[in-house]
């Protein structure tokens, strides 16, 4: 269990993290979302005392990070896969980390095998690809068999097989009762990976809930209907207070989108008017849609429009 309470971090006048509070439950993968510059990485660094926060507390199973005698055995961290010495081998990188927390050499070999790097463990890290460094970073995070795992963008640089592997790995870790906090910009991946979400913008908490709840709260569910009698269905739907919109030219189109009523209501209405249905589909918007809707006013940096 991670408990973050009232965390605040400033860089000069800029408030990077603003009175942020959230919890990460054991046995679940919690996604940490926010636009670029929203303070996700700073929060993670503050959580483990790498950056000094102005105020607030962070506890791991009730204990501050600095009070844990062998921290890697309680909290596994992957903040940036590039935090390695390029002239050192992957095995030696893990060995010094293991030594610092009195973790046996056998465990180094175990995690190397677990992440699929055993065969290249003696290569110098300057020869590793970003994906290999991500795997090494995950091996380092798992070195102490920790109850809590914190990963910042672990899927960066991974190929599709690697992304799927890390998704399965995080779910597996959570299934063992570990608290897993993971940030990622790959929202489609996050929707598959995480069960809960902590969403921040400009260093402030925007929402904390399950992924399903977050999408439900922040998107509009619509029903797509295709029928030769679509006009009659829409007329009845309007009477029920629904918002309707033809797909394509209303004069010729047999397809429409209906929002404000459930798919069950649309089906029953169609039956009532004796309409033949060629399609009846609930169109649910994605985590990306929900995220963009929620963080529209919280973007630190905005892209220009595409001409």
């Amino acid at each position, binding site marked *: 269990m991670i408990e973050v309470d009232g965390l605040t971090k400033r860089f000069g006048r800029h408030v990077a993290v603003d009175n942020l509070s959230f919890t990460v439950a054991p046995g679940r993968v919690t996604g940490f979302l926010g636009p670029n510059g929203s303070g996700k990485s700073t929060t993670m*660094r503050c959580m*483990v*005392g*790498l*950056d*000094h926060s102005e105020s607030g507390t962070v506890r791991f199973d009730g204990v501050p*990070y*600095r009070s*844990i005698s062998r*921290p*890697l055995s309680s909290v596994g*961290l992957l*903040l*940036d896969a*590039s*935090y*390695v*010495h*390029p*002239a*050192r*081998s992957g095995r*030696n990188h893990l*060995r*010094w*980390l293991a*030594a*610092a*927390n*009195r973790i046996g050499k056998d465990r180094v070999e175990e995690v190397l095998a677990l992440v699929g790097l055993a065969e290249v463990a003696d290569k110098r890290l300057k020869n590793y690809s970003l994906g290999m460094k991500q795997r090494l970073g995950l091996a*380092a995070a798992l070195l102490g068999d920790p109850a809590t795992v914190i990963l910042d963008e672990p899927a960066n640089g991974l190929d599709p097989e690697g992304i799927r592997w890390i998704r399965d790995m995080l779910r597996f870790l959570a299934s063992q009762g570990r608290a897993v906090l993971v940030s990622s910009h790959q929202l489609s991946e996050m929707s598959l990976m995480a069960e809960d979400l902590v969403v921040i913008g400009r260093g402030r908490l925007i929402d904390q809930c399950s992924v399903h709840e977050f999408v439900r709260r922040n998107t509009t569910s619509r029903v797509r209907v295709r029928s030769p009698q679509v006009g009659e269905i829409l007329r009845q739907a309007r009477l029920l207070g629904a918002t309707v919109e033809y797909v394509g030219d209303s004069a010729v189109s047999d397809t429409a989108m209906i929002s404000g009523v459930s798919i069950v209501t649309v089906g029953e209405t169609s039956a009532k008017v004796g309409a033949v249905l060629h399609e009846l589909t609930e169109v649910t918007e994605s985590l990306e849609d929900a995220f963009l809707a929620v963080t529209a006013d919280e973007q630190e940096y905005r892209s220009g429009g595409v001409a």
Partner: protein
Amino acid sequence: MIAALQAEWIKVRTVRVHWVLVIIAVAFPTLVAALVGMFNPDPQWVYSRNVIDLVSGVSVVSLLLLASLWVISLTSEYSHGTIRVTYAAVPARWKVLVSKAIVGTLVTLLVMAVTFWLAWFVGSTILNGRGASIGLGDDGVDAGGVFVSLLALAVIVSWFALGLGAIIRNSPASVVVVLLWPLLIENLVALALTLAGVESASKWMPYQQAIQAVSSDDSSPDVLGRPGAQLYFGVVALGLLLIGAVLDRRRDA
């Protein structure tokens, strides 16, 4: 603390450039002693004191190389970001700096001892083979005193280097400062103090005084004598290390 020491020892021995610097540090005085032994035109007029002074003088280059090693071993952690991994593994930051200082001290002692005696052995053996008659302790030279002074200077310079590295956190800048401090910075400070009316300012420059104290003529440090000069420089180096530790504790990693 033992765990942090083990981690630092693994870090030092698992980077190739560290070994290269150690090999050069050992080889350079040995090579110079060998060349002097081979090409000195009048070997019969070379005495023990000359060889000791040659070896101790050239060994200063070795201790500067080792100082560069300790600077790089610390500052490269900042440049590669591994300091964050280090402090995540060992949240008590002072333990990391103290571990680096202890590992640095032990390796420096070992390397400088090997360097000094290997260079002495090679130089004196070659010269003796060409007609010289050089033995340890001949002509009243205090070889042991010079050796201990050299070791002390090397250890103090390693602390000095680590302290500067912790303060500056940048490899090129830290190495330049460590190398230029005795050659340039203390001379400029002494000049400024002299212009300000301070008498014999150069006698109070800690690094230069400590280097002079290594000479076989132990009366050479004008003000403090051999132990005093090294104690003075040791306090300065420990002060820098302490400032580095305090700054490191306050700064974000």
